[in-house]
C-alpha cells in the first residue's frame, strides 16, 4: 500500500533540473508532496487532487496522472535550499489519512 518513489537519491549542481516520481498500486484521491530537512519536520509543498491537475509553485511544480496512479514533482533551476528529502503522501479514501513513500534524498551542490 505504500507508494514507491524513484529515484531514491539525486545529486545535482545548482541550476540543474530534477524529477521525482511517486507511484501507487491503488487508485488515489489525492497526492501530497513534502520536503524534510535533516532533523526537522516535513514541510508541505503542494496537493494534487484527482482530476489530473498540474500545479506550480515558483520553480517547483507537480503533476498527477490519475489513470496511471502516478505523480511527479519537477524541480527546475535547482537552488541550494532545495536540498532535503522529498516525500509523496497518498490518500486513497478521502479521509485525510496519508501513506508516505520512502522518500527521495536530493542534494544540490554549488
Amino acid at each position: 500500500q505504500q507508494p514507491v518513489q524513484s529515484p531514491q537519491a539525486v545529486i545535482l549542481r545548482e541550476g540543474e533540473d530534477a524529477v521525482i516520481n511517486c507511484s501507487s498500486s491503488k487508485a488515489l484521491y489525492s497526492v501530497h508532496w513534502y520536503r524534510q530537512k535533516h532533523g526537522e519536520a516535513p514541510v508541505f509543498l503542494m496537493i494534487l487532487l484527482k482530476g489530473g491537475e498540474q500545479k506550480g509553485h515558483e520553480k517547483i511544480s507537480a503533476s498527477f496522472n490519475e489513470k496511471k496512479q502516478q505523480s511527479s514533482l519537477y524541480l527546475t533551476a535547482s537552488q541550494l535550499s532545495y536540498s532535503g528529502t522529498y516525500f509523496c503522501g497518498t490518500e486513497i479514501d478521502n479521509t485525510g489519512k496519508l501513506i508516505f513513500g520512502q522518500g527521495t534524498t536530493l542534494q544540490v551542490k554549488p
Partner: protein
Amino acid sequence: SQTIHQWPATLVQPVGSPLSLECTVEGTSNPNLYWYRQAAGRGLQLLFYSVGIGQISSEVPQNLSASRPQDRQFILSSKKLLLSDSGFYLCAWSALFNGSPLHFGNGTRLTVT
C-alpha cells in the same frame, strides 16, 4: 493563525519504562490529528489517526496507544517501551475539508536504551 505544539523535543528512556508524548493544536477547531513515526533514515509511518474526541484509528499493531481527551489534544502513550520504539515521533493536524495539507509539529526524538 494555527500552531501545533509537541513536547518534549528529545527524550531518552530505558527499556520497560512508560511513555507519554503530548501534542496540542491552537487556532482551529475539530482538526484531524495524526501520529507518525520515522525511524532513522526512513520514511513516515502512520501510527494513529483521529477525527474527533475519543475517536482513534490504529494503523499499525504495536506497543503504543493514543488518546484524544480534548478536541485539540492528542497523546501518544506506551506502558512499557521496547528498543524498537526508538525514532522520531511527529504529531500533525489537518482541517476537515477536502485537500487540506498536513501540518507537522517539530517532533520528539525518542531514544530507548
